[in-house]
């Protein structure tokens, strides 16, 4: 159906050709799913753009062929030879081949209704009257799982959640019943439970319409669950290709092997390390080393105690005639303790309140109620009431690592200035000390100190995140809060940064609060894990307990939705139900939270807690 032969694409940067694809060949048969796997920059998206004829204006196909057998017209066409604006290719685009993009937030126009944008593709490619078209669109919306399709027709993308937007995108791609669908990282921006539902939906629709799919992803877990055949790309070349089973059981190429070792899995042996494609070497120097525990420090006192924290946001909305507002519970009476030297994992889906919680602890957001007690070894500090100089002094003890390495560093400051800034703010040391500290910090995160005079734009995402880590360590804090520090990074880079964080925690004796939506990452790095949903902490347990014996229905749903990069553990798509998992009112007794009864944390022994309705017995939980 689709055959790509020796495809080569160059990007022209300031007039110089930079090859993006070199000699890429693969084929897609009718009805099958081919996964295009690789890291960012490997050329997988460029391949899809070349097939669609939507390459950016500075890119050019400079060799090879893309043969597409259009089942609608029975024509065999070489897409590579066509002018990308010609009527011929426009007919294929959106009609016979359609595409789903990664970012459901930006892929839809913000000022047009969903119904308008979806039906547009239909009216372009199929003969349908206005009425028929809108009817078909509504049916399609129902098909992809919109709860109220007729209402959704008139809604704008910003009124929908990420998952629903991606469903709208899928509806748009499916509306003309294409024979080939390209899915460019369709679930990367989504939560695991929503990812599982979208993957299920794509599979069902694919089986129903008998279309072929080119699935572009970096997630080997998704590949293992979706693909029939796999093409591995690296630096614009195809490294390895073959049936899924063959590649996963017996990878030939070093790159694929390395990639497989870099993915965190649930079945890692205790103490087993991930093997990144390139390991980084961290060195500690004279200034940065584990501080010996001071005399008289009570090591048994938890470093951080959070008690009954709550935060409510008031949302405003409305139409032409009325305005309404309602309260959103972002964090609802959350309590936990972080022991000295441990890595405390906080896991939950987007919007569950984990970031709000971390910012409350950092004193960036003021909670409605609750207390935060930080015990520095000799005395307890009430973080909520700190003011002025006390607050400034306290900030040295607790530092933050941000999610997005691109926006977390000021593009107008050199790395040296970025690393020095915390020292300047706290008036620590003279210029010599600060220079030595910056040099040492760079070595600590495995970067060459000669790069200190560069600006952030000359670093890759992983390197930037390491700079962010170095900045957080500049004040030699005791506690570091990491908010999704690896979710913006490629798998191999993710392994690098995770290993670095693990090593630093050991070497510097840090206590870490690690926030993530990725269960495999949390499993790899955390000792104790708390699961959050809809602002509440629903389960808290040591790592192995949580993964072996999850009690709460939400934790179970979360765990069952993770696609494993193992052929032996396929996702059970039948078990995935719509929407029930993250709605506290629909959890089974005794876990239901619908506001009618109080809830409490029940101890199950060995540090395992679960939130249940007040007055339930352990027998209810076991049932």
């Amino acid at each position: 159906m689709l055959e790509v032969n020796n495809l080569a694409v160059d990007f022209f940067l300031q007039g110089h050709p930079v090859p993006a694809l070199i000699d890429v060949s693969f084929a897609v048969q009718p009805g099958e799913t081919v996964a295009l796997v690789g890291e960012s920059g490997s050329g997988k998206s460029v391949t899809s753009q070349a097939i669609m004829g939507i390459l950016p204006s500075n890119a050019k196909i400079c060799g090879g062929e893309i043969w597409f057998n259009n089942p609608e017209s029975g024509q065999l066409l070489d897409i590579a030879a066509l002018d990308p604006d010609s009527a011929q290719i426009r007919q294929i685009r959106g009609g016979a081949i359609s595409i789903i993009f990664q970012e459901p937030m930006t892929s839809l126009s913000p000022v047009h209704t969903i119904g308008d944008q979806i039906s547009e593709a239909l009216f372009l490619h199929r003969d349908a009257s206005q009425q028929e078209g809108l009817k078909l669109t509504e049916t399609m919306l129902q098909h992809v799982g919109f709860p109220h399709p007729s209402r959704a027709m008139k809604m704008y993308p910003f009124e929908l959640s990420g998952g629903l937007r991606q469903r709208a995108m899928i509806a748009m791609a499916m509306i003309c019943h294409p024979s080939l669908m390209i899915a460019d990282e369709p679930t990367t921006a989504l939560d695991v439970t929503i990812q599982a539902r979208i993957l299920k939906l794509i599979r069902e629709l694919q089986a129903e319409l008998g279309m072929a799919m080119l699935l572009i992803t970096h997630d080997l877990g998704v590949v293992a669950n979706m693909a029939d055949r796999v093409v591995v790309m690296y630096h614009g070349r195809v490294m390895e290709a073959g049936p899924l089973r063959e590649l996963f059981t017996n990878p030939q190429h070093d790159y694929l092997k390395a990639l497989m070792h870099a993915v965190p899995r649930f079945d890692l042996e205790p103490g087993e390390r991930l093997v990144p494609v390139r390991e980084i070497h961290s060195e500690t120097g004279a200034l940065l080393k584990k501080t010996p525990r001071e005399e008289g420090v009570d090591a048994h006192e938890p470093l951080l105690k959070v008690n009954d924290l709550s935060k409510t946001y008031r949302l405003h909305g409305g139409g032409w005639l009325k305005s309404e507002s309602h309260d959103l519970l972002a964090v609802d009476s959350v309590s936990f303790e972080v022991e000295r030297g441990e890595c405390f994992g906080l896991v939950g889906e987007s919007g569950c309140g984990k970031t709000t919680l971390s910012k409350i602890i950092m004193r960036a957001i003021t909670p409605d109620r609750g207390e935060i007690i930080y015990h520095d070894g000799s005395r307890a500090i009430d973080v909520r009431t700190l003011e002025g100089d006390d607050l400034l002094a306290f900030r040295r003890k607790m530092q933050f690592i941000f999610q997005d390495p691109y926006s977390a560093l000021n593009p107008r400051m050199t790395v040296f200035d970025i690393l020095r800034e915390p020292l300047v703010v706290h008036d620590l040391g003279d210029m010599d000390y600060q220079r030595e500290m910056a040099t040492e910090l760079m070595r600590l995160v495995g970067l060459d100190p000669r790069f200190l005079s560069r600006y952030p734009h000359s670093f890759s995402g992983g390197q930037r995140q390491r700079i962010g880590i170095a900045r957080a360590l500049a004040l030699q804090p005791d506690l570091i809060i990491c908010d999704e520090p690896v979710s913006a990074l490629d798998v191999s880079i993710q392994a690098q940064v995770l290993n670095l964080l693990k090593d630093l925690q050991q070497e510097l004796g840090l206590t870490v609060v690690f926030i993530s939506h990725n269960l495999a990452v949390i499993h790899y790095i955390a000792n104790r894990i708390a699961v959050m949903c809809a602002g509440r902490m629903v389960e808290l347990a040591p790592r192995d307990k949580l993964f072996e014996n999850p009690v709460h229905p939400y934790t179970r749903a979360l765990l069952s939705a993770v696609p494993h990069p193992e052929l032996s553990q396929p996702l059970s798509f039948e078990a995935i139900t719509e929407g029930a998992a993250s709605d506290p009112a629909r959890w089974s007794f005794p876990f239901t939270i619908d506001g009618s009864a109080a809830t409490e944390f029940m101890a199950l022994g060995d540090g395992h807690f679960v939130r249940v309705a007040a007055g339930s017995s352990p027998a209810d939980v076991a049932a």
Partner: protein
Amino acid sequence: MLTYILRRILTMIPTLLVISVLVFVIIQLPPGDYLESHIAELQSQGESVDEQKIAFLREQYGLDKPMPQQYLKWLFGMLQGDFGYSFEYELPVTEVVGDRLFLTVLISIATILFTWMIAFPIGIYSATHQYSWGDYGLSTLGFLGLATPNFLLALVMLYFANVYFGTSIGGLMDPEYIDAPWSVDKLISILEHLWIPVVVIGTSGTAGMIRRLRANLLDELQKQYVITGRAKGLPPGKLLAKYPLRVALNFFVADIGNLLPTVISGAEIVAVVMSLPTTGPILLSALQSQDMYLAGSFLMFLALLTVFGVLVSDIALAMLDPRIRLGGGSK
């Protein structure tokens, strides 16, 4: 949304009040008042001063009263449609302004239409053909337009219009129609003269708008949803009009509020150079001679236009962009 519009209209009232205080105070800041500078001028020319008339005027218009009282009198007068008395013309302000206001509005609207008609296609062309020769050429022209002082352009244009088209120099109509009753011929004469001030006043605004439209459209053209549209198989023209242009329009609409006052105040120097019978030259001389009621009324008129323009553009934005209409921000 209705409550929003109501609230916006209500907030206009204190805004205008503050502006009126500012206007009044600033006009009164220089020492003395119109009558004093008038006396000084007469005396310097060796003419006699009619003391009685001066005293009469001073009392009539309360110039001997304290400033707050003068202000309140002016304010309440305006609310009742009495804009005061122009000392210089010795006429009520409304009569001085009269026809000139109409011509000012005519020139302004023509200028805005000219700006849009030129800026729109050129901006779209420049954005869609970024870094082409056409883009470079039009950008250079645009920068020239931005950089040329209006009065210079006015003189050059007047010269060429006279030499090649035989248009009479200055004014907005041939001399024989001034003070003549309205007729078709007079209108034609006005139209013949109108294009010069419109081009002169509109050039820099057009150039600025081309740059802004180009920049905005370039931003939008790179957005993912445009690629989505392309991937649907939309033809390029339709794609451009439906998606990026629609979003880039936002800034266009947001600009309406600023456009009216800039066009009107930017026209003043040009009006002086070209001796246009618009409000500009009067405002200038009124400010110079401290003819306070005339100047104050003009400035209040400008302020009203600005505040009203911003309101109109806000409402238009809400109608155009569902994100503004429906997306309530969290507080």
